[in-house]
């Protein structure tokens, strides 16, 4: 095991090359609905238990199912009203279980990227062929269901191996949402090819906000506004990225969706916000920013050594 993941160099948030977003926007804003399938009885993984209670954990299982049955539609309609397309972090088996949800997203121009096969199949302990198999399955499954080639990855239940990033780059994926070291995209060190980290968030994530931070629906709305205010202010100097990761089994409750939608409208009603998808951010970054950032990283590495 390594002391440092070795995926990026230290890169202080000062004197970086300026990131310029389309139209001179200050913030690239994207919303990541996690559309997940949690199995009632997945095979055991010695590194992680799927459910807090013994089989069958009907409370936890049915709580997750609520997101797909009920909450998803409230979340989707709130996003529609604010003109936000989702960049979906998808348990790709959902293409088989609930293709109706996938079609609704495709009709809206939503992006789909992979969050593994199920959120109850963990990458911990996978050998290389197994990890290749879930990437290949993800590419194939999402392509068949949506016509899209996945550009991004958020590891299933945030479970990784040491080779995850190398494999993502090898398969041509553009970005990973698994790293939380920055509010701007950044090239990631991979064995071959290119990969960038896409700012996601474990703080503005509704799971963390409601569950860990115990935020009320209105307090969560306030957190979202404050997160935006800072990134918008700093974005006047160099483009920033703000992501709201969502789970319909939480944000989609009748007592939560209203305050969330108000916060979403607060962001989208600002001038200078690029309301976009993760893929579009990544493509713009590779075309317009990557080389300047890479040169800056090389320069800094040279001065250090």
């Amino acid at each position, binding site marked *: 095991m390594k002391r440092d993941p070795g995926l990026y160099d230290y890169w202080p948030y000062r004197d970086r090359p300026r990131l310029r977003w389309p139209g001179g926007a200050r913030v690239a804003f994207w919303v990541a609905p996690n559309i997940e*399938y949690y*199995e*009632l*009885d997945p*095979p055991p*993984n*010695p*590194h992680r238990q799927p459910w807090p*209670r*013994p*089989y*069958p954990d*009907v*409370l936890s299982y*049915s*709580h997750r*199912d*609520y997101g797909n*049955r*009920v909450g998803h*539609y409230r979340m989707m309609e709130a996003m529609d009203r604010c003109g936000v397309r989702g960049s979906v972090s998808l348990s790709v*088996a959902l293409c*088989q*279980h*609930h*293709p*109706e*949800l996938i079609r609704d997203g495709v009709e809206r121009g939503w992006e789909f990227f992979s969050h593994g*096969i*199920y959120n109850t*199949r963990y990458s911990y*302990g*996978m*050998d290389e062929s*197994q990890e290749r*198999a*879930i990437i290949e*399955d993800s590419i194939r499954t999402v392509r068949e269901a949506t016509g899209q080639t996945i550009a991004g990855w958020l590891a299933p239940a945030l479970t990784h191996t040491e080779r995850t990033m190398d494999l993502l780059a090898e398969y041509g994926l553009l970005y990973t949402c698994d790293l939380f070291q920055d509010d701007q995209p950044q090239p990631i060190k991979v064995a071959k090819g290119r990969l960038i980290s896409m700012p996601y968030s474990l703080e503005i994530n509704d799971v963390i906000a*409601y569950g860990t931070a*115990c935020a*009320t*629906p*209105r307090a969560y709305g306030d957190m979202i506004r404050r997160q935006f205010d800072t990134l918008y202010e700093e974005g006047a100097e160099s483009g920033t990225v703000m992501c709201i990761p969502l789970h319909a089994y*939480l944000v989609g*409750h*009748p*007592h*939560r*969706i*209203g*305050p969330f939608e108000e916060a979403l409208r607060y962001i989208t009603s600002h001038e200078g916000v690029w309301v976009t998808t993760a893929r579009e951010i990544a493509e713009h970054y590779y075309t317009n920013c990557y080389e300047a950032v890479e040169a800056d990283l090389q320069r800094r590495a040279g001065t250090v050594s």
Partner: protein
Amino acid sequence: MTLPADYLEYPRRRHGMDQDWYPWRPHFAQPARTWPNGARLAVWLCTSLEFFPLNPTGKPFKAPGSMVTAYPDLRHYTTRDYGNRVGVYRMLRLFADLGVRGSFAMNSAVAARYPQLVADVCRDGHEIVAHGVDMDQLHHGGLEEPAEAALVDECLATLLAASGQRVRGWLSPARSESPRTAALLAARGIEYFCDFVNDELPYEFSTPAGTLLAMPHSHELSDRQILVDYRHSEAEYAQQVVDQLERLQSECAHNGRRILSLPLTPYIVGLPYRFGMLRELLRDLASRPGVWFATGGELLDAWRASPDSGREAA
């Protein structure tokens, strides 16, 4: 540690669910109906009456509300008992003052120990819902079927003897089930159960012994979740209930009938410093036009009486 090759086999990767209990049913695709009495929004008050033994086994896990300290944990035992003695009587009086009825999910140990409470609940026209034997006798996969069946039988027989009501609904202690719980309930004539939190309208739940109606009974809007687990204030709890009500009412206009299920716990919302909030909240709900305070049994009958009651083949 490596994983076996079959870790990436998915035998239940198919349309619908990965189990055979109920079909996939997107909520907003349901036909828009009203309740039979013309109401749009049903409010279901479901109060839990629970007995937490002083000497729990804690197996296979401690139910929320169980003892915490070394034996004898008098502080938690008496705190819970307070609900069954004081808090619930505040709530009964409030419900009577407002003219609303609801359901009381009762451990049979409560009925056996406090027969007057059962009589008082029944006299006010409330429904008794079976809630297992006590909060330390959980239904779980490690129970042999005869042992679990004995728990169900003991619960139902005790509640019948104490209340004279044929119990129609079930809520498992701590919402914990074995793979057989629903079938054991169906085989004994239970008509609905409330353990699953995946929907806001009832749906048919298949078991080898017949079907049950899965009745929505909120987890995220419960007083325990918001006031105890999330530690939100009383005002913040009431705000969330009102927000839920108003959101559901706005959906009723387009999507038809809705249920606001409000689980209440006497040792939580029956405390003096919280009770004023509960009184104001329920007064507010009761003053809203088009709101029908129903028991679980009334919701069951109304659902079954509607033309598309969801008796679709699973």
